[in-house]
């Protein structure tokens, strides 16, 4: 009897992520949601630029690789072309909250019927650990070697808090994958974000607090602890907006 198996929506390609990186967990949660909803055959994923750029190799559904920050616009075109398809983006913090801010905000404002998986690990991973729009005040990175000084480079962007004021956004939740309880909550949120799209309820975004042991310069275990002690207090978990019931009515 099989009690634990790889979701069908994940390919057999070995992930390129660093040891201890939480992208693997998040990929699995997305794939489980796709499997459980039985939507793989009509799902199209939009990969972004950053560590998750090669997401297109890891999901079994059709995939499109977007330019940096443009995934929500690509998803918009894809969804409008084939509304029966389920379209999701998978983006990091640099992609979604810096270079792609306009695409993110306007996809939400339009109430675009897409699902956005936003992985926030407070750093640019792929390029080797530069300051991200979500890097914490005081956080040391390659481009904030003396710590993020809010007096000169400003404050982190809180995406869920920012988007919740937009009437077009249906469902916004911030989750984390630093412990079992949070992983289970993350799964629920991600599945709901896909379900919303299946029901045609509009724009759903799940922000996942994630880790980057390599560029944070920590062991995987310490990184999980750092996320809990530093990121989650700054980025409180929870539902920021849920118009699902209104939208269903």
């Amino acid at each position, binding site marked *: 009897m099989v009690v634990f198996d790889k979701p069908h929506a994940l*390919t057999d390609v070995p992930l390129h992520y660093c040891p201890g990186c939480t992208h693997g967990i998040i990929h699995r949660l997305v794939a489980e949601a796709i499997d459980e909803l039985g939507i*793989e*055959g*009509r*799902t*199209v994923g*939009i*990969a972004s630029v950053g560590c998750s*750029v*090669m997401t*297109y*190799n890891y*999901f*079994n*559904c*059709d*995939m*499109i*690789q*977007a*330019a940096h920050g*443009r995934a929500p*616009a*690509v*998803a*918009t*075109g*894809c*969804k*409008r*072309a*084939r509304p029966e*398809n389920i379209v999701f983006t998978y983006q990091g913090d640099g992609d979604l909250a810096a270079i792609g801010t*306009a*695409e993110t*905000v*306007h996809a939400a404002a339009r109430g675009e019927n897409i699902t956005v998986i936003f992985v926030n690990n407070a750093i640019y991973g792929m390029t080797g650990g530069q300051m991200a729009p979500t890097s914490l005040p005081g956080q040391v990175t390659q481009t904030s070697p003396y710590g993020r000084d809010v007096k000169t480079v400003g404050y982190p962007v809180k995406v869920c808090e920012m988007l919740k004021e937009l009437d077009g956004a249906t469902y916004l939740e911030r989750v984390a994958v630093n412990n079992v309880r949070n992983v289970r909550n993350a799964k629920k949120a991600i599945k709901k974000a896909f379900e919303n799209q299946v029901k045609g309820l509009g724009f759903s975004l799940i922000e996942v607090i994630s880790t980057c042991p390599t560029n944070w310069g920590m062991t995987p275990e310490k990184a999980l602890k750092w996320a809990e002690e530093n990121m989650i207090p700054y980025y409180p978990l929870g539902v920021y907006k849920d118009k699902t019931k209104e939208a269903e009515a």
Partner: protein
Amino acid sequence: MAEKVLMKGNEAIAEAAIRCGCRHYFGYPITPQTEIAAYMAKRMPKIGGTFLQAESEVAAINMVIGAASAGVRVMTSSSSPGISLKSEGLSYMAGCDLPALVVNVQRGGPGLGGIQPSQSDYFQATRGGGHGDYHMIVLAPASVQEMASLTAKAFDLADKYRMTAMILADGTMGQMMEPVELAEGEVRPIEKPWAASGTQMTRPHNIINSLSLVPEELEKLNFARYEKYQTVIDNETLYEEYMMDDADICVVAFGIAARVSKNAVIAAREAGIRAGMIRPITLWPFPAAPVRAAAAHCRAFLSVELNMGQMIEDVRLASECARPAYLCNRVGGMIPSPELVLAKIKEIYGGVK
């Protein structure tokens, strides 16, 4: 059954696009092409299509990428500064081999420039515009009729070769009204087995992608793409020749400049100068063969352009500088008069041995 109606050039593009099966338009307002968006905004909802005004040109071209990836006929339109913004997307479309139509109703530049007609995006259009090695199929209409017929042609070529096709028009072509015969929608649907349209669990997943981190593989992709481009050069080059059989002076001009130049060629003939004209209809691929052939019997070339001399470089390349090439130009929204072109023809004719 074809009907003849009086239309603005911009509207002719929009109607022609709809008639050949385009049901998705993404754009952002900019003068002098906004009639295309306005037309699409009115028509698309009535025929089950999508008109979407994006938050920027950058977003619009990426929406085009999404729809093209999904395998549908899709277009956007803009004018010069907006095309600069779209250029990132154009490079990705080339890297992903995505078919779509992009319309550039050019205005004067650089920068914000002006809103009057120009041809100063010739380099940007024919050399690609964005980063990397690539080309688009570039079509240059010289009448409202061609605004319509070349739109249909552009979609067919884009689908056939999995390339982005561009209509390179200008403010006069977009704004002027002429009778146009619109072909009844003859959509030749083309299979797109490569599209990201959903696996339906019946095939391996399709990936639309321009990333290739292994140098040997990326090199292969580039070589293969340029082999395809060679096929396009060999088979799809379009041009019109006018009084070229015995021409001593060969005028080369496209779009509005070609209409003006035709009058000048007629006037030159009346004045006893054997002038002729080659009008490139595809700017890429550039009609190099007729220009090369003309070099055998013409004394000189005269490139008439609404820019500081861009196409003239292709004239020189095609003719291998076998004959001198001169420039007759107005810029910034100004249009050369037939008299100006005639004066230049006379000047060259008198000066060249």
